[in-house]
């Protein structure tokens, strides 16, 4: 599942990836005509809207692509970089960049392209940009307050509006298509060419525009991979014929006291309940957090058995089924709930008589030993959370 860095592709290899995607980026920008400053500023004087067409098409394509990949669980949207919002610096910085754009005729990316094609003014623009960055670094103390004001975090636009990402993508696509038609009209006015709109030619364009709409429909109206998995889990739960590996508390006690390193005892209840009481040596992964990236290693490893328990057996079963989708690890559900375990230890009315020792006594002893063990081990912090590596990014 993407992103492939840093799990599948190392950070060193990532630099080669950077070089390769850079080639693609530069190639397309140059082919689109972005090495020509006249074509770029045409956007602001109405005679050439190539920039708008390329920019909007690229943005919409990538946006819909991201939605599509995350819908089919191919890309973890929580791990990709979302540019943070600092309202004032975005507005002022953007305004200054706009001013630089109309005066200089390039933006940083396009200036590199143009310089590669031999444009002397672009080379001067690059020198200017470097000086501008230097100027910012020297004046940073003066603008620091503005730079850091109104920090809204890595908020997404759809969340800000309180709408679904699919709807937001539809809105942007509609705006883009509307803009494509409008700028043709403006272009023909400015260039004093008659504005013609023939449906015959437009047919192909409509066909092209239908592709993103279709993809959006698929993502909006088909269940996502996660929903499908959830359905299947609930079906298996309701079915009753599904066979779970089970282990009794007695087995657990003896396994834990013999070799606790072979077992991940997972308490699925809330952190508050866990704190109040839990089976010794258990770790706490609340059921709702089970799928979180930070716990993934527990379900991918193949040398320990995961034992699930909660305050009801249903939840243990649910976790068992979810972990089927997360990895290959061995697992079983505890026959008893937390309450059941307690009763067994405290009250000791068990039907299983171990040899010679009273079952009650044995359980209580073992439980005590495990508590002592837990106390001892807690010094070493045995829970290994996987570090959530959100991609770094941005231009700054």
């Amino acid at each position, binding site marked *: 599942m993407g992103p492939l860095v840093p799990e599948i592709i190392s950070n060193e290899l990532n630099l080669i990836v950077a070089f390769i995607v850079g080639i693609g980026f530069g190639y397309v920008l140059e082919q689109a005509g972005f090495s020509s400053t006249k074509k770029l500023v045409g956007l602001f004087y109405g005679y050439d809207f190539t920039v708008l067409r390329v920019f909007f098409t690229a943005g919409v394509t990538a946006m819909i692509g991201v939605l599509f990949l995350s819908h089919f669980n191919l890309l973890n949207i929580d791990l990709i970089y979302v*540019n943070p*919002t600092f309202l004032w610096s975005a507005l002022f910085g953007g*305004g200054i960049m706009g001013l630089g754009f*109309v005066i200089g005729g390039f933006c940083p990316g396009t200036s590199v392209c143009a310089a590669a*094609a031999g444009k002397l003014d672009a080379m001067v623009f690059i020198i200017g940009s470097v000086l*501008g960055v230097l100027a910012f670094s020297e004046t940073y103390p003066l603008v620091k307050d503005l730079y850091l004001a109104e920090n809204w975090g890595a908020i997404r636009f759809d969340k800000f509006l309180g709408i679904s990402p699919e709807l937001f993508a539809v809105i942007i696509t509609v705006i883009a298509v509307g803009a494509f038609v409008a700028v043709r009209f403006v272009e023909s006015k400015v260039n004093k060419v008659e504005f013609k709109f023939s449906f015959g030619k437009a047919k192909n364009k409509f066909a092209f525009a239908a592709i993103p709409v279709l993809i959006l429909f698929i993502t909006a109206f088909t269940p996502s991979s996660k929903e499908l998995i959830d359905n299947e889990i609930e079906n298996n739960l309701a079915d009753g014929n599904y066979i779970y590996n089970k282990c009794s508390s007695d087995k657990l006690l003896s396994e834990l006291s013999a070799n606790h390193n072979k077992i991940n005892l997972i308490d699925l209840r809330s952190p508050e309940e866990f704190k109040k009481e839990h089976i010794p040596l258990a770790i706490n992964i609340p059921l709702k957090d089970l799928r979180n990236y930070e716990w993934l290693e527990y379900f991918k490893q193949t040398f320990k058995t995961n034992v699930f328990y909660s305050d009801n057996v249903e939840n243990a079963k649910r976790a068992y089924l979810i972990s089927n989708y997360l990895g290959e690890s061995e697992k079983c559900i505890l026959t008893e709930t937390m309450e059941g375990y307690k009763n067994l230890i405290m009250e000791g009315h068990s039907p299983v008589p171990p040899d010679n020792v009273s079952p009650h006594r044995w359980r209580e002893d073992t439980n005590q030993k495990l508590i002592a063990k837990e106390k001892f081990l807690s010094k070493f912090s045995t829970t290994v959370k996987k570090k959530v590596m959100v991609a770094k990014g941005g*231009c700054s």
Partner: protein
Amino acid sequence: MNSKPYMNPYLAGFLLGLVLLATIYVTGRGLGASGAFKSAVAETVKVSAPEHYSTSEFYKNYESTSEGGFLKSWLVWEVIGVFFGAFISALLSDRIKLRMERGPGVRKRMRFTAALIGGALFGYGSQLGRGCTSGSALSGMAVMSFGGIITMLAIFGGAYMFAYFFRKLWIKG
């Protein structure tokens, strides 16, 4: 030798979108450009004025977020790629030539001065706005970042706002 015509803008946009999407899928981050300029500036200052580098708050921030410096910077390698990609494209389309473009009646010196000032403003703005047209506006749009889209609107809005005053650099009248 005549250069070949430019690509259809929608096709170019679609391909650019795929490059961006592939970048996000593989690396979890978007494309960028101005960040490479920043790395270049930081590295130069680090070498030429190490004392200033170690006391400046701006470079302290840079040092704490960048790992391994200039040659380990993702954006530096990406921008080197951009240069090669654009060079290949211009070569294949017969567009490589040492020249410049300027509006009607604009002198060379004027164009150079404007490019220098415009570049400086863009460089400054890109640091204040945490990214330029590529890193903030385009990549931000792809991941629906609020800040990215606001920056995009501010860049293009600002350009339209100021366009009238600088029209003589580009068009007649």
